[in-house]
């Protein structure tokens, strides 16, 4: 048996994130004890109508979230317990809502920092309603092997170590959350474990006092002894002493009170929990409480260090009188383990997973991203530049400085070509329609294709074909192209010609020569241009073709080459978007006179058949 909560406790948790994380811990406990999950619902108005996903073993349970306790209990009428994780300023109202709900029999309040007056009103109102409210500032309640309310008991492994998966013979009541866990550990080490452990909270006025719980423990035949851990201040321990001496009690009482240090400290200095304050006239001191408890027949060790041996002695006595028996526990290996995360299993080498895809350029699993193995910060500190990063990410090679220089110049030359070209116009139209930056730039980028800026890859492909198959036969190459492909990609311009040359192309060629870079593809393309311009003077090597040759000469794979145009022109498109925003560009509509309306004149719509 147990008190306050057991395997029949069905819980509604009031509150947001903290409530959900408590539910996770509670699900771990249910799983360990092979019990169904105890939480039926959450109450958290901002998320009402949604569900919270709680991991139970390897399953994910969807627990519904409601607006009110009434709504939760109407949908889950088995609910009989409420856990309050609401902020201090609304906790009183939340507790009253739970107490006034006829289904709810027990409320435990985790909220810290609740005003004293609110706590006192809860004492009065819970009494009036005949219900128990535990807290505020409570770590929770745990009935070993049956029910966990809150995060009490700590992490999964501790639940096992402290044998909380099955009941023992000891009840525990503490003000401190951390000590509740410590005492459960002590009781598992020096005796047979706990029935129920209750954290009443360290506030000045815990709503439910020690004696109420002592009464319940006295009636719980499985509980043979109760440990209360008190502290200076208040009179809960004195009341417990009175309770213990006023008539013969079945349970043995072990007490422990902190605050002896107060005697040697400067007057008025107070420590620990809010409730830990000695009265003006010496009442409530650790010594007075200890003496009261001893006088009432409770066993109170001199120091916390003696508590373990004291528990052991009480357990031995209980065994000697046949009230308690040695419990044979299952080896831990037979208790369920929490399912491991996939990462842990792979790390342990217990499973092989077929990768979804392969990546060969970057890795951010460590402290910082690696570009082909080089830490980004080290590239920066050693003075490398954007073209080097581009070389690594696109070609998996670190370009030398001359190569980097030419990459940089290509990006500079291709950055923009005015507002009228397809890409910029696409971006500007979108910007003027009020579209955001990334979508507007995308509207420009989708223009890049076979006719606009997208000839770089193809130019590389075919000039390379020519260089390999028709190295000294330009007319042969042109015939091949005419027959099998069409116009040579990278040759020809709408407006530029021999007489009106593209300065960007000229500059790029000059750069390559000046830097003394190897240029077989460029030389081949220039030889092609010499022939084509002989036929028509705008059949010049255009910027796409020139870039294609230079970059192919640098060793970039031809699939990567359109990327240079995409990257460079993105700078321009972003600029156009910003420009329109800055200048307040208005919605663009084409003038009718720019369109040839070659349409059918107006006519009558026939009736539907």
């Amino acid at each position, binding site marked *: 048996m147990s008190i306050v909560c057991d395997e029949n406790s069905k819980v509604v948790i009031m509150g947001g994130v903290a409530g959900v994380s408590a539910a996770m811990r509670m699900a771990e406990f249910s799983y360990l004890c092979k019990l169904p999950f105890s939480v039926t619902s959450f109450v958290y108005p901002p998320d009402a109508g949604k569900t919270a996903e709680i991991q139970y073993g390897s399953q994910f349970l969807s627990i519904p979230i409601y607006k009110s306790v009434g709504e939760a209990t109407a949908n889950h009428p088995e609910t009989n317990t409420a856990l309050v994780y609401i902020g201090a300023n609304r906790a009183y109202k939340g507790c009253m809502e739970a107490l006034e709900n006829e289904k709810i029999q027990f409320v435990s309040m985790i909220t810290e920092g609740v005003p004293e007056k609110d706590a006192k009103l809860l004492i009065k109102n819970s009494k009036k309603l005949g219900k128990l409210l535990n807290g505020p500032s409570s770590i929770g309640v745990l009935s070993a092997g049956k029910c966990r309310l809150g995060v009490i008991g700590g992490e999964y492994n501790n639940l096992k*170590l402290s044998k909380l998966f099955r009941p023992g013979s000891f009840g525990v009541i503490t003000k401190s959350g*951390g000590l509740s866990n410590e005492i459960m550990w002590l009781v598992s080490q020096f005796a047979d474990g706990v029935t129920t452990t209750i954290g009443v909270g360290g506030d000045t006025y815990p709503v439910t006092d020690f004696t109420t719980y002592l009464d319940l423990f006295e009636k719980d035949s499985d509980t043979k002894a109760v440990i209360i851990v008190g502290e200076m201040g208040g009179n809960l321990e004195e009341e417990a002493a009175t309770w213990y001496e006023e008539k013969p009690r079945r349970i043995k009482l072990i007490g422990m009170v902190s605050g002896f240090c107060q*005697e040697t400290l*400067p007057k*008025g200095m*107070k420590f620990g929990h809010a409730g830990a304050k000695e009265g003006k006239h010496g009442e409530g001191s650790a010594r007075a409480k200890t003496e009261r408890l001893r006088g009432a027949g409770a066993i109170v060790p001199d120091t916390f260090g003696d508590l373990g041996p004291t528990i052991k002695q009480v357990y031995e006595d209980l065994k000697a009188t046949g009230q308690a028996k040695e419990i044979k526990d299952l080896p831990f290996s037979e208790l369920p383990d929490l399912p491991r995360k996939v990462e842990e299993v792979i790390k342990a080498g217990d499973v092989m997973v077929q990768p979804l895809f392969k990546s060969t350029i970057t890795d951010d699993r460590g402290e910082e991203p690696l570009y082909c193995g080089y830490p980004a910060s080290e590239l920066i500190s050693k003075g490398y530049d954007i073209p080097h990063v581009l070389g690594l990410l696109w070609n998996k090679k670190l370009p030398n400085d001359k190569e980097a220089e030419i990459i940089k110049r290509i990006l500079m030359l291709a950055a923009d070509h005015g507002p009228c070209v397809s890409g910029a116009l696409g971006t500007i139209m979108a910007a003027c329609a009020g579209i955001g930056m990334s979508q507007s730039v995308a509207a420009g980028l989708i223009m890049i294709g076979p006719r606009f800026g997208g000839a770089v890859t193809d130019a590389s492909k075919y000039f390379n074909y020519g260089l390999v198959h028709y190295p000294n036969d330009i007319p042969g190459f042109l015939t091949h192209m005419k027959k099998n492909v069409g116009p040579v990609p990278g040759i020809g311009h709408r407006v530029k010609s021999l007489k009106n040359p593209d300065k960007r192309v000229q500059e790029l060629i000059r750069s390559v020569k000046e830097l003394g870079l190897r240029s077989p593809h460029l030389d081949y393309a220039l030889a092609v241009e010499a022939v084509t311009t002989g036929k028509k003077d705008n059949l010049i090597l255009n910027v796409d073709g020139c870039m294609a040759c230079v970059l192919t000469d640098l060793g970039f794979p031809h699939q990567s080459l359109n990327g240079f145009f995409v990257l460079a022109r993105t700078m321009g498109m972003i600029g156009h978007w910003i420009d329109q925003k800055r200048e307040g560009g208005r919605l663009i509509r084409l003038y009718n006179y720019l369109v040839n309306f070659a349409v059918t004149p107006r006519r009558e719509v026939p009736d539907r058949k």
Partner: protein
Amino acid sequence: MGKVLEGPGMELFNKWGIYTPRHFVISTTDQFESLLQSNVWMRESKLVVKAHEALGSRMKLGLVKINLDADGAKKAADEILGRDIDGLIISQVIISEMIVHEEEFYLAVTSTREGAEILMAKFGGIEVEENWEQVKRTFVEVGDKPTDEQLEECAKSAGFGGELVEKMRKFSHRLFEAYDNEDGSYMEINPLIVNPADGKLCALDAVILLDNDARYRHPDWNFSFASEFGRAYTEDEKAIMEIDSRVKGSVKLIEIPGGKVALLPAGGGASVFYSDAVINLGGTIANYSEYSGDPPAWAVEALTDKVCSLPGIEHIIVGGAIANFTDVKATFTGIIAGFRKAKEEGKLDNVKIWVRRGGPNEAVGLESMRKLAEEGFDIHVYDRYTPLTDIARFALKGEDN
């Protein structure tokens, strides 16, 4: 709980119709001059000047001067302001009208578990302590108000008679309203007197403790709480209070000069048992500290820094129970960072560190503490299998005991 100094305390009293002597809180004598110009009473009445700080035994320290004329009051203020009391510089004085009176009474409201008690005595001052058993009490349940009959009866049983019964009823009603509406924990008037000038009851002093947790619903509390232990907070204590007020969980620090054992334990409950253990073994503690509720690592690091800076310490006790949800690894990361910094600054020379802890990620956390030994720390690390407070004994009596 929070203690309110006399100046703001009297403002709070006045807000609820509780009559007090006229008074001002000043921090320079120039302020005194300008107040003197505009307040006739300061020239016509005798004055009292008191240090306006959270200090005990002000009378003994010569920080209270009475029966002064304006010049004398200015001189007294000048003398008191800037005085150094064990490192605390007096920065404010309260100047109030001195009311010569015959009889002194006592009135208080104190919070109890069920509600409040109103306490009355027809004597005041130090007589209250001496005759505590004769102070009369009447109980008011939480959510209720005292009745007229109940207050009059209490006043009569305390020995008040004639007109004073009605005056006490009205006055204690007001004090109760102040207590109830301002989330009071304790309000005391000692002495309460009758002002011969107008025959009205008047509160010569205000001891007010308010509930700090209720601050959110009192936007007009324009004061910060004063220290409750007879001295002002130190800079380090204030720095930790400031951090405590804005982080998840809590970090706490109270300095105790002269102690040899510094405490850096986890948990409001366990920390006091560590203090008890050190003192029980004949040791002296250099501070009280505590961190709990899974505070961020940086806050624990700041606390560690202050604890390591305590002068003359020989041991640091990094104790703690088996945590429910405070992450041992994460909080230890903060402590370790603080230790490394302190060691570099030479603050940990000849300081032994004792660790005992359990809880989420305990294995990793304890291992990282153990590794500090390789960096030259004198550190001794124990896990859950060593009882909670044994490290205090190891520190003071040796690891073999």
